[in-house]
Every structure is written in C-alpha cells, then in structure tokens.
C-alpha cells in the first residue's frame, strides 16, 4: 500500500496530456511585462528608469522587505515604460515593460549548463544567494524561499521534503523537469541539505509518474541520504501539510508550519532554480510552463521567460481553439481564470489551461442537500457547508471559531458538491474578512 494522507482528498480526472512532451524553449519574446509583485509578501521596489538599458539577469526591482524577493530582468533590452498591466488577479498591477534588444546576442545564445556536482559555496553563502537571486516557491504559492529556509536558532530540522507530487490535473511541468533534470535536482537537494545542515531528504512523487520515480530511485541508489517515496494519487497531496503527513506521518499543528514538526518542504522546480542559482549564478528569470487543454493542438511544456505574455504561449501551441470560454493560469483546481491573454507569465505560473465551452461553465447553485460530501473530502477536517453558510450570513466570528483560517483553498469541497454550490468562493470571502478583523484587532 502506497503512502498517502489519511483524511479527505479527491480523485479528479488526471488529464495529464503533456507528460510525454519534452520541455521546449520558447522563443525570446519581443516584449516582457515583469510585474513587481510576483511573490507573496511585499512587492519589490523598482530600481530602473524608463529608457534604461538592462542586461539579462540584472536586478530591476529590489526586495521590498524580509518577506519579499528580488526581480531580475529576463531579457537584455530597454525599459520602455513602467505601467500598470492586468495580472492574474484581474486587477492592474505595476509592471516593468522591457523591449528585447534583438541585436543583443546574450538574448539568444543557448548556454550550456553541464552538470556540476561539487558544491563550493558555504552554507551561509548558499542562503545568501537564494535570497539575492529571487528564488521563490515555484509550486504555485510563490513564497520567498529564503524566508522558508531562514531557520531560527534552536529550531531543529531533521528532514527536507521534496515536493514532486504535482497533484493538479493537467499540469506536467514538474514531471517533465524531474525527468529531464533529475541529476541537477539531486545536486540541488544536496545543496539545500548542506545549507540546512541536515542528512535526510525524501522526494515524494505520486504514482502516476512511475518513470520519474524509477529515474530518481536509480539515481539515488548509492546515496543513503536521499530517499524516493512513491505516493498514492490523490488531490491535494501537493499541499505542504498533506505531504508531510503522507511521507512522515507527522501532523503539522493547526495554524503552524512544517517547521513546527522539524520539516522543510520545497518543490522540485524550486530545487532546480536553487541549483542553477548556486552553481551557475543564474537568477530566476525563466520557468517551466505547461500549456495544455483538451482542444489545444500542440499542448506541451515550455521554458518560458518571466514576463512573457500568455498570448505568445497560446500562439506557440497552435493558437486559441474555437469556442474557448476560459483561460486558467495554473491548474484547474487552484488556478486563476484570467481576463485576457496579455497577462504575463510570472514566477508562479505553472501552467496555462485553456478550457472549452462544455467544461467552462459552472452549474447553477442549488439547495444544499446536506450530503456531507464536502466534509468527507476536506483534507483539513473542516465543514465547508457550515463555513459557507456562516460567511454568507456575515457570522465571521463564528466562522473564525470553526477554523475557517486553516482552509488551504484546495477546492475539493466545491469540486464534489453535487448541488454546485460555490463553497470555496464564500469561504475565501470569509477568510478575507476574518483576516481583516484579526489584523484590526491586533
């Protein structure tokens, strides 16, 4: 019996259409729009001016505080304007618009990055580099990595977990990365183990990626420190708390972090970015994006520069299919529907999903039949039907007592609700208000 987390979870159709497609490199876009708020926390501060020439990898916006991150120029070119552009939140946010210099060869040369196994930097230098090179969690939450790795003294970490679960349907970016860069990822894990001074790491991969499991098992055969664990396929196993529970049977305390049980979790994509930053001084300026959808002609995985408009990606896979009704930034369970294709790829974009008419529409909400399905599937042991009711009626104090803030917004409740009730919409709303109430209280 394979490991998994015990409570809740769902099995949406996997639809991993692109798992056999190699990661292609997308042509350098003519123009990039780099938002300054690509991570959770304080937005970065712009340090370039209009008409300024920038080089690849140059810092263009500086970390705005501790929970923040540097942003680097993905291309060599000229800053044409500092403008507000619609991003995934559907609101206009501050962006740095850079026109790519077509004459600058650094934009187009394909650098070779051979595997480099020796780790020269010291633990402190590694952490410093992760901070400076704008590494954030690439699993989708975009939490600045240096904050996660900033372990206070006296806190004992005994295990590093590598999240290769990719439980979202459709997405295959992590899967492909694991297949194509397995050696580098292992070096990346060793880098982190050195930085944190721990001797144990476990890579958790869901069993629908057998090739990746085999590959890592083979690669870590002679490495006693790194284990590979196959996991049952179940959404939302990629959630930090669920993964810790599945792999180590440790339960993160309510409102706590994996740190509370001596664990740090990182996504494979983040590990690879850390590898490149530490071994090759390469900042986070590109990432793997899965562009997929049932009607998409050439659905595939791409290396994409941060700031590339999504329209470029859609064009690359054969254009927008007839009858598209929804474009999602991310996976179908947690991704955000976007307003138009001018939205740029950010550090958190793991996939672009194009949904046609038949799947795009939500059903009309009907009466709750109290079937309790949402309660059974909630991985956090919450009662979504109750939380929705409380939020709808404005009883936020009670919602807070019913642990609304521990909701991880995985969407399992809305997924299963036979009455098509917008459970998560209301829970999110309730969380928002409760958060405001809490901050105003403090």
């Amino acid at each position, binding site marked *: 019996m394979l490991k998994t987390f015990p*409570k809740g979870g*769902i099995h*949406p*159709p996997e639809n991993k259409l692109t798992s056999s497609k190699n990661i292609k490199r997308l042509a350098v876009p003519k123009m990039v729009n780099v938002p300054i708020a690509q991570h959770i926390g304080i937005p970065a501060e712009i340090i370039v001016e209009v008409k300024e020439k920038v080089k690849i990898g140059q810092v263009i916006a500086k970390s705005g505080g501790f929970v923040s991150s540097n942003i680097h120029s993905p291309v060599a070119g000229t800053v044409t304007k500092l403008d507000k552009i619609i991003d995934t939140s559907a609101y206009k946010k501050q962006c740095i618009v850079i026109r790519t210099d077509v004459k600058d060869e650094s934009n187009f040369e394909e650098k070779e990055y051979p595997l480099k196994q020796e780790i020269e930097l010291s633990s402190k230098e590694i952490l410093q580099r992760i901070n400076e090179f704008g590494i954030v969690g690439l699993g989708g939450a975009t939490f600045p990595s240096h904050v996660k790795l900033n372990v206070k003294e*006296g*806190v004992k970490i005994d295990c590093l977990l590598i999240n290769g679960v990719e439980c979202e349907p459709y997405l295959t970016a992590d899967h492909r990365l694991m297949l194509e860069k397995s050696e580098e990822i292992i070096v990346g894990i060793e880098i982190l183990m050195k930085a944190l001074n721990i001797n144990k790491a476990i890579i958790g991969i869901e069993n629908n990626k057998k090739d990746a499991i085999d590959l890592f098992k083979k690669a870590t055969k002679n490495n006693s420190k790194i284990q590979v664990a196959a996991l049952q396929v179940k959404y939302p196993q990629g959630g930090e*708390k669920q993964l810790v*529970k599945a792999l180590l049977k440790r*339960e*993160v*305390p*309510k*409102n706590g972090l994996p*740190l509370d*049980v*001596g664990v740090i979790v990182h996504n494979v994509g983040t590990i690879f970015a850390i590898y490149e930053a530490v071994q090759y001084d390469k900042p986070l300026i590109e990432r793997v994006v899965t562009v997929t959808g049932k009607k998409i002609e050439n659905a595939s995985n791409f290396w994409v520069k941060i700031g590339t408009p999504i329209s470029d990606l859609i064009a690359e896979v054969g254009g*927008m299919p007839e*009858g*598209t*009704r*929804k*474009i*999602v930034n991310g996976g*179908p*369970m*947690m*991704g*955000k*529907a976007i307003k*138009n294709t001018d939205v740029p790829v950010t550090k958190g974009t793991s996939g672009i999903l194009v*949904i046609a008419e038949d*799947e*795009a*529409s*939500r*059903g009309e909400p*009907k*009466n709750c*039949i*109290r*079937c*309790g399905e949402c309660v*059974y599937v*909630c991985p*956090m*042991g*919450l*009662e979504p*039907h109750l939380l929705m009711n409380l939020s709808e009626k404005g009883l936020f104090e009670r919602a807070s007592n019913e*642990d609304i803030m*521990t909701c991880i917004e995985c969407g399992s409740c*809305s*997924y*299963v609700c*036979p*009455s*098509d009730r*917008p459970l*998560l919409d209301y829970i*999110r709303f309730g969380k928002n208000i409760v958060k405001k109430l809490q901050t105003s209280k403090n």
Partner: protein
Amino acid sequence: MSQPIIISASPHVHSERTSKKIMYDVVIALIPAFLVSLYVFGINAFIVTAVAVISCLAFEYLIQKYLLKTEITIGDGSALITGILLAFNLPSGLPIWMIIVGSLVAIGIAKLSFGGLGFNIFNPALVGRVFLLVSFPVQMTMWPTAVENNLSMADGVTGATTLGMIKEGLMFGETMTEIATKIPSTIDLFLGITGGSIGEMSAIALLIGGIYLLVRKVISWHIPVTMLVTMAVITGIFWVINPEQYANPLIHILSGGALLGAFFMATDLVTSPMTKKGMVIFAVGIGVITVVIRLFGAYPEGVSFAILIMNAFVPLINTYFKPRRFGANIKSKIV
C-alpha cells in the same frame, strides 16, 4: 470568440456527481423492492405507489407555484423519492384519498414549510406515514394479504404483520415457540413472502438496493450497519435471556421496516448527520428506540418513530460531533 471569456474562482473542474443523479440512484435502488411488491400485492401496489408519487409531485408543483411562488423544483427527484418511500410505508389497500392526504402532509408540511429540499428536519415520507398512522390507525394496520396472488402464504396471514403477530401472541400469553408456527419462516421473510407495507417485506430486494447505493457511494455503510447491529445486539441479549418471550434478532431485522429504514429512510442525506461519528451515534439511537418500541411499546413496529425522533437530534449531533480538524491538539516542536 463569439462569447466572452468566463471568469470564476477556482476550482474550474467539477465532479460528475449532481444531486439529481444521487436522487435517481436512490430511485433505481428502490426498483427491486417495488418489483417484489408488485409480485406479492399485484396491481394494488402499483396503484398506491403511483398515487403517492403523482400526488407528491403535484403538491410540490402546486405549492411552489401558487403558494410560495418560488422556483419549481419537481425535476430534482426529491419529491419523487418522497412519493415512493411514502408508498413503500403504506399498506397496499389504503384508500386513495388517504394516500393523497399523506402526500400533502409529507410535501406540504414536512418539506416545503421548512424551506424545501435540504431544509427539512424530518424525513418527509416518514412524517406523512406517521401522520396517517396516528390519524387512521385502523386502515393503516390493515394489511391485505396476498390472497389474489395465490402464493404460499395465502391461507395464513390475515391483517397482521409478522411483528404484529408476535406482539399479539405475546400479549395473549403465548410463547415464541407457539408463535413461530404462525409467522412466516425466516426464508419467507428474507424473500418477502409476508404481509406488511408495500416496500418493506422483501429483505433480499432491499439488500440489493442498499448494496447498489453503497456501491454508488450515495450512502455510506455507517448508518445501516450500525443501526442493524444495534438492533441485533439488543434483541439478541433479550432473546438469549428468554427465548420464549422475545423473538430472535434475525426475525427483528428481517421483519417490519428495519431494512427499509436502515438503507433508505435513516440514510436520507438531508435528515442524517454529516460526519461519520455523528452517523454512528444517530444509527445507534435509532436502533435502541426501535427495539424499545417493538419490545415494550404499544406499537408492534417502531422504526419510523425512531428515525423521526433521531432526526430531531441531528442538528445537535452535527454541532457536537465535528470532524477532527487537521493539526488540532498537536504541539509544535519549536520551543
């Protein structure tokens, strides 16, 4: 693009399950029991069921359209199920006007006056049934036998169910051994060759339906299994103590409304608890109350009362038996 792009919050996919499908699964699960009742009671079973279903749907339509002036929801299948379940709890010879009154109580009072599907506290079909039982006790306990169908039991039962016969026999001071010669054999009970309400006789048909519901994950095993086990354990204790005064657990489970109640009435999604823990407590309560009524009460049968009584406790159970929150009562290792 012809139509504008849709914006909505995640998740962007939805499972295939809809409340309509769940309702129709329940209807499918009730078909075997209906077939057996047709076989045993003939056309009467069909008439009662048809009248109950049609009047339930009609009342739902009429009340929603002219009284409440809300959206009409007869298509969702819930009124259909109420009609079938109500019919299954009635004797096959009941006058048609009584069935219609029962339907009105079930839909009008028990369901729509609470706010419609999902808001009712009590199982509508059972409310209708109990209303008829206390209003028209004579007609509601006249169990027509299967004479016209020339089955094996043709000469035996006249106007009493198995449980009724046991109750009556014990009241007249007979022992179980004596009673056992009059009541249908266990196998007959299992197959449904007995008197009783339309849908409740055939254990095998109800089990088939119940297993279908379990396989389709419409219901979970917690309520039916716990309820039947509770009944078996309690009646078993009494039986072991004094087999001449108390019927054996098998008879208790196979006769009366125990199986119909366990699989179809107690598991009604709306009126049962939301958590597994709550379900177990709910089902234990039903089992205990049923047995108490059967053994010590005035009525020979108590499943409907037991379910209705426990229905009233469901909000309380939901409040006090919550799922365990992830990470609750776990201490951080960081000092």
